């Protein structure tokens, strides 16, 4: 059986599956239930200074997609609304009861060194393994000069990170907000400040929908709504993109705890393949309960066994070198759609998608009275659209056309402006 134990920035856990800082990690009761279910670690819901914040009633919004619930999820909840003393006492107890699990404490206090110094000392006494600086929340706290208000200004990130490194022996993770134009800037600021690792992505600024009767954004609090943090399966591609960006930029040197729409072992494997050390889950647990970690552990182990990866490090970051700039792609690569006529159910979706919106490369006809859809190879540019719209798994394959042509990047392509100039 593969060894899925995890070590990221010196923080160890029996598996890479952590619960992200969020409602599921707000109390000892929840966290111990999670550990019993098998979670490898938790990031305790963000602590702040007393007096605790007050949360509103009506806190979550969600969007479903074609009958599936919670494809995307959004919250307007703030950091913990329980007194600091209670949280610290419970953290101490949990760490004592579950010494093999990773326990990281998320923090968010005003942008003053004394505040950070004060809280770090108290967290240290709990025996927690690390802290995670919450520079991400896009709602509520940012209006008070915290959360993403810090995370969107690289200079603040660097400053606060530096304070934290100066005032604690614990590893410091910086949680990054995706609500920026380039994720590398805040990442580099965290690195400059001495961060031991980054965690990303925090939630995406969002409104989940509009109630067309009450004419108000959702989720709604007595007729009004506010922007909240978007997460769940819908944000996974955004998270993967940002994780890959950082992994490539740092050559895999900066530890990354990957977050964003992770629901299955396969999602987790993808984050790890792009360079994540541990991964963090929230929405999936809030949707199905803690039990899902069982399949995540078993699925990841079996897949690693099947692939011959003995440890997480064996495949961590393996996909990162293949994440390249567009200009480094092979212009000589050609792939064409091929329809398996035995699997085809004659829905015609490939045809109409191609006919209306792409390259008119799938012909519709009748063969002995039956509908018949066929790829016109000469017109097919290999865009993959038909494969994506086809409802039957494996019916449309994209088949690479064998070629003896060399790997040709855009820079070397005859139609690149530089090359046109030289030929003329």
């Amino acid at each position: 059986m593969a060894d899925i134990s995890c070590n990221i920035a010196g923080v160890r856990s029996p598996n890479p599956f952590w619960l992200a800082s969020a409602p599921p990690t707000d109390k000892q009761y929840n966290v111990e239930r999670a550990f019993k279910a098998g979670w490898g670690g938790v990031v305790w819901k963000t602590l702040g200074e007393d007096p605790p914040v007050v949360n509103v009633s009506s806190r979550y919004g969600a969007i479903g997609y074609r009958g599936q619930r919670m494809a995307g999820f959004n919250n307007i909840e703030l950091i913990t609304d329980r007194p600091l003393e209670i949280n610290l006492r419970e953290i101490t107890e949990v760490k004592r009861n579950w010494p093999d699990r990773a326990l990281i404490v998320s923090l968010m206090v005003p942008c003053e060194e004394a505040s950070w110094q004060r809280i770090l000392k108290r967290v240290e006494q709990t025996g927690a393994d690390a802290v995670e600086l919450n520079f991400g929340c896009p709602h509520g706290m940012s209006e008070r000069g915290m959360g993403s208000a810090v995370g969107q200004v690289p200079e603040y990130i660097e400053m606060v990170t530096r304070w934290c490194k100066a005032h604690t022996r614990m590893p410091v993770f910086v949680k990054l907000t995706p609500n920026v134009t380039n994720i590398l800037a805040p990442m580099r600021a965290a690195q400059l400040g001495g961060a031991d690792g980054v965690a990303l992505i925090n939630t995406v600024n969002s409104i989940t929908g509009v109630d067309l009767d009450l004419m108000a954004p959702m989720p709604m609090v007595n007729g009004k709504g506010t922007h909240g943090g978007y997460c769940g399966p819908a944000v996974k591609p955004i998270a993967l993109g940002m994780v890959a960006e950082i992994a490539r930029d740092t050559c895999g040197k900066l530890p990354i705890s990957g977050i964003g729409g992770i629901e299955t072992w396969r999602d987790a494997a993808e984050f790890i393949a792009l360079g994540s050390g541990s991964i963090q889950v929230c929405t999936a647990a809030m949707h199905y309960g803690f039990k899902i970690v069982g399949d995540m552990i078993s699925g990841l182990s079996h897949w690693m066994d099947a692939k011959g990866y003995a440890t997480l490090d064996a495949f961590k970051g393996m996909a990162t070198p293949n994440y390249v700039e567009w200009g480094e792609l092979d212009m000589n690569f050609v792939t064409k759609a091929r329809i398996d006529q035995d699997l085809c159910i004659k829905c015609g979706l490939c045809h109409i998608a191609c006919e209306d919106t792409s390259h008119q490369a799938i012909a519709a006809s009748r063969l002995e009275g039956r509908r018949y859809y066929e790829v016109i190879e000469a017109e097919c540019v290999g865009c993959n659209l038909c494969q994506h719209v086809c409802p039957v798994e494996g019916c449309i394959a994209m088949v690479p056309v064998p070629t003896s042509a060399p790997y040709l990047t855009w820079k070397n392509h005859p139609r690149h402006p530089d090359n046109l100039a030289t030929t003329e």
Partner: protein
Amino acid sequence: MSVNVAEVESLLAGEPGEKLSSRVRGGRLQKETYERNFDDLHPPFTVQEAVVEADRCYFCHDAPCLEACPTGIDIPGFIRGIQTGNVEGAGRTILGANILGGSCARVCPTEILCEGACVWHGRNGKPVKIGALQRYATDWLMDRSIQPFVRASPSGKRVAVVGAGPAGLACAHHLSRLGHDVIIFEQRAKAGGLNEYGIAAYKVPHDFAQREIAYLMSLGGIEIRHGLMLGRDFDLPELLRGHDAVFLAIGLGAANRLGLPNEDLAGVEDAVAYIAALRQADDLSKLEVGEDVVVIGGGNTAIDIAIQAKRLGAVNVTIAYRRGSAEMSATSFEQELAQINGCTIRHWAAPVALHGKDGRLTGVEFATTETDPGGKLVIGEERFLLPADQLFKAIGQTLDRGAFPTTSSPLVETKIRIDSEFATSIIGVFAGGDCVSRDQDLTVVAVEDGKRAAAAIHNYLQP
């Protein structure tokens, strides 16, 4: 249940002292059981169920279901409306193509029409429940009394429609939309034709047929005159004198006979007439049903009467058909439904004699049948007998020739012949529905006839 003919006599004598007439009686079940047995066969979708089912639709291009619908309803189009919460749009799409879309949603053999063509079959999946979704959308409109149509400005033309069944109603509705005034002549007390008198009760419960007609009539421009029968109370020449055109949608009013001696024994009944009585019954417990019931026939009427007899409390119900399962005009879904309801289907059996005692039916004697190499039905040597105190004949209907007593008749052989524009041999007289020559006798086909005939009549009425 079958025994050799040799054992007939002892069997037919019945139990000592038993009065044969008591074997056919009502009140076999508790009141609640009657209600349950004749309530909705398929309860309507909830909002959530409808959306989940609608989400299964792939929104096919050139959708096979659409092509399989005789009325050409844009099925992917209306299902998308249910998906997006545009149920009103969905309902309008359906009713625009098929004004009796509510009935058809309930009574269509969807397994051989739209749902039979669903691409889900291609991946070994269950088809999208198009019928149930259609019901959801049409119920939505009807429940809110939303009338999707407005009449065109009055044409000043008057059209007579004979028969207020699906074909007549659909034709009348389309003619009215086009601005013509329509008078429907209906021999029965209620409109609806087979929807009101012929379809199995559990398919259209809660007075659906009448509610649908009231909804259809709310367009205006249509008058129904009840109790008037063509050939008895008026004739074609009279109609032509008083109207600009005539549409005949008289259905098939006469039931076929077995042609056996003793067919007038008590207990020998015509299935169509019995179902009509059942559909109009205020109290189902008053309907008399036998203990051992035999149904002769292989169509949907045979299935309907068998299941309803069982649901009225009959103990043994056997459907006997002279050919095999594949040759039955009842769909496989209907055949299974009969079997699920506890009816036995006996294939390759033709009735040859009706046995009786004291004027009452006691048993039906059958010959086994087979087909010769040319496919022709051959009566075999073997005989068997089914005890029966009630027999339902469900072997088809024919046109009631009494409709055309004069020499001026559009009849050709047993049905009315029409051309591609629904015109009969008499100028100004059109026809459609079950009374015209054609293979299929489905409600949805009758509706399409009415719709297309209305367009043809509209053309005919143009100056």
